[in-house]
């Protein structure tokens, strides 16, 4: 196994022990290191203006090592995994490591925890920080012992001089290390894989004990003395306004103190609060009762014309028409003109809501010169920027405390709910906590886009696939920021569509127009959800049309092992293709691994079936074999899912597995029942009775995750498991029943067979 290289050389490690960083987080007299971004020179340029370290590590004279977690914890285990990398390079004992959550602050680099990029973007910088601190402790000990520091190493929270068997604990060296300069990049030595105790093996998550005892603090648990509670009745249609309201009955509810009208959001809605009427009171229950008593007359505005039934039909027509050509190879029109036969299918997927178990919520306290918020945010710097703009404060007058997130899935990247709390706190003159109800959450989300796909293949006289014409249409996330946007961004189109990996000589990828009428946002794996569904189902349909085994057929569609050549239209999740190639060999290997472990081809009775799908996203490849069981009267269960995963180096394998297990459930939710619809601009669903997410007996019963042992650069983990799940399940339904699912969710379909 190879060891991941640090590329290019690290830079910018600084000893900041005497510069007062970290305020009260670590004790006085601690040794504190900051390390700036080592990877991209463009980013380093901003670091040079003023020293802006983005990772902190402190060692107190007691020996306690404090590591700052700067990314948001929403269940991936990142608050454990990144500090674990530092601790391992340092040679610290995990039991003596304390983790502190960073507030929103540009000093830490990007804190926008989305895009499955925390490990890939910060793995190296964490190693640099740990290795730098180790080097300084080794030098401090070497000076005491009067030996060469290269003869020293660290192990078990001590510096060790091997040849004389002498040791010095970290804490004893703190005073000496404070006086040292950090090492030059060329003097850093990184541990080899065999020397690492935690990376590639894992440690228990740092918040586990607090979670199982109820002591973990989520956003909804934040409190302040004198705090008021708020619940907000928002315009039911995006962009709607309050025409008139009567709060008499509301104000009569015991505990209700005020009703405050908030100005409605206008397009572009971006991350702005929606407006509405806020009920302020002395308890959550008072505000909820008060809201029920409100009488409001709304002016719905232009989006009242939005109804899913008509919109979705138009969206499919737009997908079929296509229009904007994203990728064009060979001569697709000639191939179709020469075709012996064609295979065509359309696919449709609905709007989806994130529905994190903790709804959006935030606590704020605002004075003339300080705004403080406590919020479960994936993106504290955006909240900081918006709040600074809101109140005319500088960034250092806005403190965003990041709590644990009770789920995020992309919803909590947006700061609308944080700004709501701050506006109300300012208005009320006391701390205010805003808690969204589940109904608020389901009706006012940043929805995953509704989509339609049109897929066509041309086959010649030998039944070879000679051309693919693929077209997708969906309201782009761009519409949330630019109401005139009509097309998907390169990023969205490159999520499993313009990067289709098949070895077909003529390929054209198109994108039809679509408008946005609700706030569209990114949801765990984003456009990959519908693109993987369309592509993976269509390949399964092609296999059936050609009379081939679906898995063998998929292998043959991949063509030869190669790095896929893609043009400028392809953004590769923000990474250069030279660094993270689209490697067909790795995609094929996960497909084979999933098929092998699932015993693809095994005999199953009628009503049971296996389905295959594989997908590369966020620089990782995941292949899935789903087994379904459909009773004659159409009841579906999912007895087993096999997932083969190549995410490069698995820094914390157990958390990779848990993310994949979770992705199987999340993806099953997409397949089974997830559907948001609108009528007259209003969202028709409201809570878990009509927006259904899988329960324990509906979820895949046995999820087997098969990790590819790899020393390649780490890829994404949080999202890549989701896209292949729904198509694998639906391909299995076809194998079991002969029924082809072209429109999600499955709840729309009668699966009975005879």
């Amino acid at each position, binding site marked *: 196994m190879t060891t991941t290289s640090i590329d290019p050389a690290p830079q910018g490690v600084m000893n900041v022990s005497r510069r007062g960083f970290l305020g009260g987080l670590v004790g006085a007299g601690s040794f504190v290191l900051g390390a700036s971004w080592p990877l991209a020179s463009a980013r380093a340029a901003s670091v040079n203006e003023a020293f802006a370290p983005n990772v902190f590590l402190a060692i107190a004279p007691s020996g306690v090592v404090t590591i700052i977690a700067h990314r948001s914890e929403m*269940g991936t285990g990142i608050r454990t995994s990144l500090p674990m990398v530092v601790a391992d390079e340092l040679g610290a004992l995990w039991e003596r490591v304390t983790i502190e959550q960073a507030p929103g602050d540009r000093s830490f680099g990007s804190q926008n925890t989305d895009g499955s990029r925390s490990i890939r973007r910060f793995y190296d910088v964490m190693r640099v920080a740990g290795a730098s601190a180790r080097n300084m402790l080794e030098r401090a000990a070497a000076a005491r012992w009067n030996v060469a520091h290269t003869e020293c190493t660290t192990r078990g929270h001590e510096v060790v001089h091997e040849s004389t068997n002498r040791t010095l604990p970290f804490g004893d060296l703190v005073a000496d290390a404070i006086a040292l300069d950090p090492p030059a990049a060329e003097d850093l030595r990184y541990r080899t894989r065999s020397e690492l105790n935690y990376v590639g093996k894992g440690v228990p998550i740092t918040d586990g004990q607090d979670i199982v005892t109820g002591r973990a603090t989520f956003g909804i648990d934040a409190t302040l003395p004198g705090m008021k509670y708020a619940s907000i009745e928002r315009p039911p249609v995006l962009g709607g306004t309050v025409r008139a309201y009567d709060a008499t009955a509301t104000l009569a509810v015991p505990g209700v103190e005020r009703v405050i009208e908030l100005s409605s959001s206008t397009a572009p809605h971006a991350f702005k609060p929606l407006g509405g009427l806020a009920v302020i009171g002395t308890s959550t229950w008072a505000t909820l009762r008060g809201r029920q008593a409100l009488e409001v007359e709304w002016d719905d505005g232009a989006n009242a014309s939005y109804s899913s039934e008509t919109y979705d039909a138009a969206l499919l027509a737009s997908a079929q028409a296509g229009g904007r050509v994203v990728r064009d190879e060979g001569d697709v029109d000639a191939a179709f003109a020469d075709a012996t036969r064609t295979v065509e299918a359309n696919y449709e997927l609905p709007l989806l809501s994130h529905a994190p178990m903790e709804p959006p919520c935030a606590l704020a306290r605002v004075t003339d010169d300080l705004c403080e918020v406590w919020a479960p945010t994936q993106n504290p710097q955006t909240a900081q920027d918006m709040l600074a703009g809101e109140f005319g404060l500088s960034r250092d007058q806005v403190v965003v405390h990041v709590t644990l997130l009770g789920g995020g899935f992309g919803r909590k990247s947006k700061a609308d709910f944080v700004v709501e709390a701050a506006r109300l706190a300012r208005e009320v003159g006391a701390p205010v906590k805003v808690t969204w109800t589940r109904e608020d959450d389901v009706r006012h989300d940043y929805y995953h886009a509704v989509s339609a796909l049109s897929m066509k293949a041309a086959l010649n006289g030998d039944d070879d696939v000679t051309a693919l014409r693929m077209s997708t249409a969906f309201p782009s996330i761009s519409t949330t920021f630019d109401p005139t946007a009509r097309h998907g961004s390169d990023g969205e189109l490159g999520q499993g569509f313009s990067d289709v990996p098949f070895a077909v000589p003529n390929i054209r990828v198109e994108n039809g127009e679509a408008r946005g009428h609700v706030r569209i946002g990114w949801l765990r794996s984003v456009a990959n959800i519908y693109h993987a569904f369309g592509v993976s189902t269509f390949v399964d349909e092609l296999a059936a049309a050609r009379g081939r085994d679906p898995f063998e057929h998929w292998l043959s569609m991949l063509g030869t092992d190669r790095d896929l050549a893609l043009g400028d239209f392809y953004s590769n999740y923000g990474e250069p293709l030279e660094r993270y190639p689209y490697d067909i060999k790795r995609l094929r290997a996960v497909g084979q691994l999933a098929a092998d472990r699932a015993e693809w081809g095994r005999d199953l009775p009628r009503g049971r079936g296996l389905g295959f799908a594989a997908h590369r996203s966020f620089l990782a490849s995941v292949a899935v074999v789903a087994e379904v069981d459909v009773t004659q009267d159409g009841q579906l269960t999912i007895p087993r899912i096999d997932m083969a995963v190549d995410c490069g180096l698995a820094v914390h394998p157990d958390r990779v597995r848990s993310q994949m297990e*979770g992705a199987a459930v999340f993806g099953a939710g997409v397949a089974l029942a997830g559907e948001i619809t609108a009528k007259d601009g209003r969202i028709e669903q409201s809570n*878990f009775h009509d927006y259904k997410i899988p329960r324990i007996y509906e979820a895949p019963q046995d999820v087997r995750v098969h990790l590819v042992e790899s020393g390649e650069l780490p890829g994404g983990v949080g999202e890549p498991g989701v896209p292949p799940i729904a198509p694998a399940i639906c391909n299995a339904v076809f194998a079991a029943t002969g029924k082809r699912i072209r429109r999600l969710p499955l709840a729309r379909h009668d699966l009975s067979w005879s």
Partner: protein
Amino acid sequence: MVTLRINGDEMSLDDVDPTTPLLWVLRDHLGLTGTKFGCGMGQCGSCTIHLDGRATRCCVLPIRDIDGMSVTTIEGLSEDDDHPLQEAWVEAGVPQCGYCQVGQLMSAAALLADNDEPSDDDIDRAMSGNLCRCGTYTRIRSAIHAAARAMR
């Protein structure tokens, strides 16, 4: 005035609107924030507590309806954070975001109090009211089996 026994302590809730669901009394009035809000209509199980020993969703449970009854929350589940389920949960690495896990644990604890050797079907039935958006179900099932073994 409503009186409840909460985690063994007698509590007189004289200043609280008696229509208030127990969930908000626990969270807003008593500072017992381990019990979570998820849906407000008894659909998701995040607010599961034990009411006279039975797993109960308390987001739709006005305190006037449970006067004199005994309530156990996660804060009172074990003396030293050492309920076999809590230990099994950590051992199996069940939690992801962790938000629903208190409710999951309370449902599981009520199950094991009645059934010391539950089958997968028993578990699925007892846990069917508890949603987990992170998708930790397979580990929940194996952790319940592990805790049951430890308790036998």
